[in-house]
């Protein structure tokens, strides 16, 4: 536990140029967006760039054999952290590709017999967009709503399954609100009805315990850069008992049991494997540490600022994630006021499409509160000092912006904001 906590990416807080005691590098609190590679992962990867650079599919010489060994070791490490057999793990370029393959690959294989899929409105865009793509091809898709706490209603799921349903796709942990779905119960429902269960576990692997057999999961997407591994690599678990069949999206030399052709990027595979191995060992202690940091942060914020709301369930949640709405203060404006912190927001002003977060809307969060939201993600290299600094900084910025806010003024005067006829635009 001590080695990980000491391994900060920006050890001392260097004094700013003007001697004003402000750190030079901003503090990274956006661990759901991506994570830095753990230095131990980079160390594991390096030999495979210039020394052991062989193609793992070269059968006839040592360069090939060494690369193949490394890839197969990585495969075992990935299988281990999710409770799978190594023959059930194939490498992809990332969770987006894994999700595409899971949905489209499975749908195309079974399309003559079944044509109905079920997913959830809060899924990542790569799942929702793949589902929409399948709808254009003639498949039918049901998009289940979620409750206010962000969790899927299991009764609704049961009622949505028909005898034409081939696949249910529910993400393990949500990237915006960190909410964890009841995977074992969903798996039980699906298995009993003869429906395949896919879960996008990009945010969950290495953070919460997962067991594909116990949870009756048939397909699982894994992302390297969400668990301190490199970007550009992921994996898809494809169950063998019961056997899941799928049609490859990427065809060629037939690598990965014909499911995903292409030369495997040995260093990246090694990196993903190493990241999983580290996570498997350190998950328990790390989760506890993150929960402690998160609770410390949230308690301090709640104590010093009124009108702050949590989006999504607090208990069924990734330990390092918070999604908070700071009423009467818009998210992008707030982020500009906390330049030394790296976070993200569900405000419309931060999206290219000018639409507020669809995940927050799905929770029933009113639009004006969606615009005031910040997503804060703590991670392996976050320190207590980072957390305390973040609290000071955010409290200061929120107070300053509330002084600027006509809505805060109205609320203080007791005006019912909902009663006003807004001009809108």
């Amino acid at each position: 536990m001590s080695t990980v906590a000491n391994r900060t990416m920006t050890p001392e807080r260097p004094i700013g140029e003007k001697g004003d005691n402000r750190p030079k590098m901003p503090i990274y609190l956006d661990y759901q967006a991506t994570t830095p590679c753990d230095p131990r992962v980079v160390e594991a990867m390096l030999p495979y760039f210039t020394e052991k650079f062989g193609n793992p599919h070269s059968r006839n010489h040592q360069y090939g054999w060494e690369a193949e060994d490394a890839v197969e070791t990585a495969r075992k490490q990935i299988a281990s952290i999710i409770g799978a057999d190594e023959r059930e793990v194939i490498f992809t370029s990332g969770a987006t590709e894994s999700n595409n393959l899971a949905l489209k690959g499975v749908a195309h294989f079974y399309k003559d017999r079944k044509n109905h899929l079920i997913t959830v409105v809060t899924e990542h865009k790569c799942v929702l967009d793949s589902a929409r793509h399948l709808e254009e091809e003639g498949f039918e898709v049901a998009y289940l709503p979620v409750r206010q706490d962000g969790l899927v209603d299991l009764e609704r799921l049961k009622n949505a399954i028909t005898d034409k349903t081939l696949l249910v796709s529910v993400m393990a942990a949500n990237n915006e609100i960190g909410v964890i779905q009841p995977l074992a119960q969903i798996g039980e429902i699906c298995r009993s009805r003869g429906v395949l269960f896919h879960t996008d576990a990009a945010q969950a692997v290495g953070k919460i315990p997962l067991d594909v057999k116990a949870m009756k999961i048939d397909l699982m997407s894994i992302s390297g850069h969400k668990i301190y591994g490199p970007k550009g690599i992921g994996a898809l678990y494809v169950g063998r008992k019961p056997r899941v069949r799928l049609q490859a999206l990427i065809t060629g030399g037939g690598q990965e049991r014909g499911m995903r052709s292409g030369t495997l990027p040995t260093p990246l595979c090694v990196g993903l494997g190493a990241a999983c191995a580290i996570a498997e060992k350190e998950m328990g202690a790390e989760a506890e540490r993150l929960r402690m940091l998160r609770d410390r942060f949230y308690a301090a914020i709640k104590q010093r600022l009124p009108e702050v709301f949590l989006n999504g369930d607090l208990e069924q949640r990734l330990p390092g994630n918070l999604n908070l709405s700071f009423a009467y203060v818009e998210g992008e404006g707030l982020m500009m006021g906390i330049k030394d912190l790296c976070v993200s927001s569900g405000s419309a002003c931060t999206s290219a499409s000018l639409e507020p977060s669809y995940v927050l809307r799905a929770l029933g969060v009113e639009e004006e509160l969606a615009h005031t939201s910040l997503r804060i993600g703590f991670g392996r290299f976050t320190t207590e000092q980072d957390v305390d600094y973040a609290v000071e900084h955010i409290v200061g910025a929120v107070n300053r912006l509330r002084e600027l806010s006509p809505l805060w003024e109205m609320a203080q005067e007791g005006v019912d904001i909902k009663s006003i006829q807004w001009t809108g635009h």
Partner: protein
Amino acid sequence: MAYSEKLLEHYENPRNVGSLDKNADDVGTGLVGAPACGDVMKLQIRVNEQGVIEDAKFKTFGCGSAIASSSLATEWIKGKSLDEAEQIKNSQIAQHLALPPVKIHCSILAEDAIKAAVADYRAKHAKKDESASQAAQ
């Protein structure tokens, strides 16, 4: 988003933040936008006997571009007549702050806020003139 220095300056040091008494005779208040859209601007003007804007105050719920646009608006309208203030175009605001295309609507809202404040002031005085002329009859 990479904002211009002028925009950042307005965000860090907004001009004329505050409120005037909306019930006062010489004050016009404009309230535009909607919380559901993530953009609300309140802009107020104090107008003297000669019809010149002596003071202006604003409060904004919105992103950095919205705050900067409304801050700039209050700066520009001080010392102008009501007619002159109404001539201010959103494109001038957008150009001065170098707003990125996706943020142009913030400058439009600022222009609307100015016009709304002026219209409110005029409406108050139209009523006064009306009741004054009625009393005179």
